[in-house]
Structure formats: structure tokens, C-alpha cells
């Protein structure tokens, strides 16, 4: 989209989001909006891993759980100020992302996916086993935010602000050199190497970043739930995050964002879908993979292309040798 149009669109969307508590209706819908924003904090970071660098992590729910428990233990059991607890959750999960990514990111795709699945299951095991720390199967209560964020509106606005920040960070990475490098890692590692991208380090960097956002999301999630047990963090949730990105479209920011909104809200609004649960997500994923593997975001792109004025498409290569010489010399004088 051209500059003024995009800025206007963003302003409209931001205005709608900020004023949501007033037009959304009941408290339940407000809570749902806050939940969607929380999911997006995780998914926005995970998007760089799955959608851009192409690493199919299906077990990020494990990091969400670690972040949630970290917050509940620090802010609840130990009475730490929630702001510090959130930061600590993020930092801890960034570290976990590093420890998980170091051995597993070198593995081929299926192995890596299984490693992340195992990670999610292991986190559940450990939270159940370490009852002294985590409350075991009984779980832990979670304190709320301090004023002024202790009201439903205040909670929503805080989470919205964090979600917007994560979106901005991810968008910056995606549209600059890093973003292109990540896409190269995903689509052609040979090319990535040829232009000098440190493939493993790039994958690990975004994975650690996604760990940080997952940890922060975990803390926010814990507050929204107000009570967490190991059952809260089933593998199905990790699969859900992953599906939002694939359906929304890899290599996009907006697509997965819309995917998150739709896939979270849909089962809430359409009751039969809620009963189907994961079957619905699996079906959607299958449909997208078979029919529009680039995701729904791509479908919109194609539609927009259709309405753009068509000019005759040339495919003739005609070098401009003077410009070429100048461009090469320009590069050499750096």
C-alpha cells in the first residue's frame, strides 16, 4: 500500500483497538480481546521463527507455560512487582529458547518439530513433578496487575500496548535486511550462505527472540487466567499458535495477526466449532496446505493484484551499461 493510505489504515485500526472497551459490548468480549492480544504477543514473535525463517516449532506452548509459571511464582509466591516479574519471565524464556534452540535448530525439519513437541511435553511433566515449586496438579493462583492496570480495561490496554510493541519490533525485522535474510534461510539456505547469512545464528537469534515474547505472553496469559494448572498448557494450544501463522501466511505480519483474531474468536462465536475444537484447526490447516499453501494473506494479495490496472508485461532484458558501471564503482568505493 502506498504511504498515506497505509498510515491512514494503521491510524484507523489503532483507534478501533484503543476504543474497543467502549464498542465491544460486554466484559466477556473485552476479556476475549485481551486474550487475542496476549496470544499475538507470542505469535508475533513466533512468526519470525515459523513464517520467516521457516523453522516449524509446534511446541512453543512450553515456553508460554514457563513464562506463566515464572510470573506466578515471582509475583505471587514471592511478591515481586509484576513489571519486574514480566521482564524476568521474558528473560527466562529467552534463555530457555537459547538452550532449546542450540541443539535442535541444527536438526532437519521433522526432527526439529518433534524436538519442540517433546519440549512441550517435558515442560508439562516437570510442572507436574515439581509440586513444591509449581503446585503440581493443583496449580497456582496468579496476582493481577497493580493500579492503574487492575481493571479489565486497564489490563486490556496494557496487553494491547505490549502487543503493538511486539508487532512493531517484528515488522521492523521483517522489512529490513534481516527479514530478507530470514526468508532466504527458509526458502534457499544455499543462497543464504552465498550472500553471507550465518544460517544457524540467524535461526537461533529469532528463536531466542520468540522465546522472550513467549515468556512475556506467558506472564500476561497467567494474569488473564488468574489461576494456572499444567492442564492450561496442553500441546493443542501450541498447535493452535502454529496454525494461526501457517493459515495467515508465512512471510507476512498482517496475515497471521488476522489469523490469530479469527481463529481465537471463531470457536467463541460459533458454538458447534468449539465442540469440534482441534478438528476444526486441523481441517483448516489441511485445506490451506492443499489449496493455498502460502496462506490466506496471499489470497488477499492476489485479489488486490486483480484490481490493479494491468499494463502490458514486458520480459525483455535491456541493460543500461553506464548505469551498471556507475553502480558497481559506487559499491567499490565503500
Amino acid at each position, binding site marked *: 500500500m502506498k504511504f498515506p493510505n497505509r498510515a491512514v489504515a494503521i491510524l484507523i485500526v489503532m483507534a478501533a483497538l484503543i476504543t474497543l472497551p467502549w464498542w465491544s459490548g460486554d466484559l466477556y468480549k473485552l476479556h476475549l480481546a485481551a486474550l487475542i492480544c496476549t496470544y499475538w504477543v507470542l505469535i508475533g514473535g513466533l512468526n519470525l521463527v515459523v513464517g520467516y525463517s521457516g523453522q516449524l516449532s509446534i511446541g512453543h506452548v512450553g515456553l508460554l507455560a514457563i513464562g506463566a509459571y515464572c510470573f506466578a511464582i515471582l509475583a505471587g509466591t514471592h511478591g515481586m512487582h509484576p513489571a519486574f516479574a514480566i521482564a524476568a519471565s521474558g528473560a527466562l524464556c529467552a534463555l530457555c529458547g537459547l538452550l532449546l534452540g542450540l541443539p535442535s535448530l541444527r536438526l532437519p525439519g521433522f526432527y526439529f518439530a518433534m524436538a519442540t513437541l517433546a519440549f512441550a511435553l517435558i515442560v508439562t511433566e516437570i510442572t507436574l513433578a515439581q509440586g513444591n515449586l509449581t503446585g503440581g496438579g493443583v496449580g497456582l493462583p496468579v496476582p493481577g496487575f497493580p493500579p492503574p492496570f487492575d481493571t479489565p480495561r486497564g489490563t486490556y490496554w496494557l496487553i494491547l500496548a505490549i502487543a503493538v510493541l511486539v508487532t*512493531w*519490533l*517484528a515488522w*521492523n*525485522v521483517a522489512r*529490513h*535486511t*534481516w527479514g*530478507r*535474510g530470514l*526468508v*532466504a534461510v527458509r*526458502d*534457499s539456505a*544455499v*543462497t543464504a*550462505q*552465498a*550472500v*553471507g*547469512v*550465518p*544460517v544457524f545464528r540467524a535461526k537461533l*537469534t*529469532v528463536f531466542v*527472540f520468540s522465546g522472550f515474547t513467549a515468556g512475556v505472553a506467558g506472564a500476561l496469559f497467567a494474569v488473564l487466567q488468574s489461576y494456572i494448572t499444567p492442564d492450561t498448557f496442553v500441546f493443542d494450544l501450541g498447535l493452535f499458535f502454529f496454525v494461526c501463522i501457517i493459515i495467515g501466511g508465512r*512471510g507476512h505480519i498482517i496475515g497471521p495477526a488476522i489469523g490469530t483474531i479469527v481463529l481465537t474468536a471463531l470457536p467463541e462465536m460459533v458454538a458447534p466449532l468449539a465442540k469440534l475444537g482441534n478438528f476444526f484447526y486441523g481441517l483448516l490447516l489441511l485445506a490451506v496446505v492443499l489449496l493455498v499453501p*502460502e496462506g490466506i494473506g496471499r489470497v488477499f494479495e492476489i485479489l488486490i493484484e486483480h484490481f490493479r490496472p494491468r499494463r502490458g508485461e*514486458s*520480459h*525483455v*532484458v*535491456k*541493460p*543500461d*551499461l553506464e*548505469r*551498471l*558501471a*556507475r*553502480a*558497481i*564503482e*559506487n*559499491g*567499490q568505493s*565503500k
Partner: protein
Amino acid sequence: MTLAARDITKRFGGLTALAQVSLELKPGEVHGLIGPNGSGKTTLLNLFSGYYRPDGGNIVIDETEISDATVQKRAGLGVARTFQKPRLLPTLSVLDNAMLGGWRDARAGFLATAFSLPQVKADERELRSRAEELLHGVGLSHAIGRRANLLEHAEQRFLEIARGLAQRPRFLLLDEPAGGLTPAEIEHLGAVIRVMRESGVGVLLVEHHTDFVFRISDRVTTLDVGAVIKHGTPDEVKRDPEVIRVYLGA
């Protein structure tokens, strides 16, 4: 200031792909590398760019040993390449594909990029304008905003060259760039390579189109079954009886 292979030997299992092959690439020079199928041309190119390690001999750049250096490290030292079958990022635009070559210049790290610091924005602007100029230069003005998977074969080849040039290379290794091009397009390719040479880039031209190679190269090396059978100026090589025998059959 040369990129050189010295007495390179490369084996794959029981097969010796290259035996004691030497080749020196100088800046501002076009060095042609020809030979029948299976003679080891692409293997040598892969050894230069770092996808293979030599079993014997070494690769040096300016007298620095780089035989064990990674592909990325060599890219950082100014070695760029194109591929026999063009490797592009199909979901990105032509411009983004060309800008990919600017990775080595990206001074800002991940966090600086995430926070969109002024340095990042400045680097991006500079890279964008340089990539655009390169794309105009190689002849892709008409396709700058197009998605890369919509390009035809010739356009893909020239895009790879633009991307390679975006790396600001000292040496550009071209892997059969004329493959699938029409005579007119090959003329354009020749003109582009000449400009590169005039600007001081050292070009290694691995090719099957021997006429084209002889026309445009300053020096030519001929391989056959993994060994150098002749090295010299195009005229010398063209007239060498061994070369003629290998190409025309005894």
C-alpha cells in the same frame, strides 16, 4: 589481489573429480573455464565458493589460506557467485532478491533492526538505491517490483547477477550464465560481463558456449576428466590440438 586454486584435488568416494588443478583469477580479468560434461568445472567453482573442501592443495585469496573457510566467510571476503539453476526467493520481489546481496554490509544487528534505529534506515535506503541501479544496469528496469516467481528464465539469470553485484564482490563466479539464453540475450550478458571487468571485478566464467567464452575472456582454462589440459589466451587455447581433440572427438 588474486583468488587462486593451487594444485587442487577433490575426490567423491572412489571418483577423482579434480586432480592437481590450478587456476588463478585476477581482478579486472575475465577467466573462462570450459570443458566437457563431467570435467569438473562446477566442482572447481564449488571449491572456490566454499561448498566443497579440497582433499589436496589449497584455495587462497591474496595469499590468505581459505580452503577451510565457510561460504559465508568467503562472501565476506568478496567472493560472490551465481548458480547453474537460478536460485531465487520466489515470494519476494525482484528488488528484494537483489537487495539480499547487501547482507554482508548490514552493520546493524538484530536488536538494532528490531528498534529501527537510524543507522538501519540509512543502510536500507542506500542499499535500495544501489540495488535499483544495479537492476537498471543489468536490464531489469521493467521488473523491479515484480514477484520473483513470475520471471522468465533470462530475467532470473540477470537477477542473480544483480544480486551477486550487490554483494560488492571482488570476484564474481558465474556458473553457466548463458544456459538457456537467446543469442541477443547472450550479447547482453557479454556486455554486462565486460562492464564488470572494466570496473575491476574478477570474473570466473564457467560455460558450455565455447564461442562466447573465447570472445569475451582474457584467459581460458580447459578441463577434461578433472585435469587441466590447456591454459592460456583464447587464441592459444582455441588452436591447441588437445582441446580440439577433446571437443571434436579424435
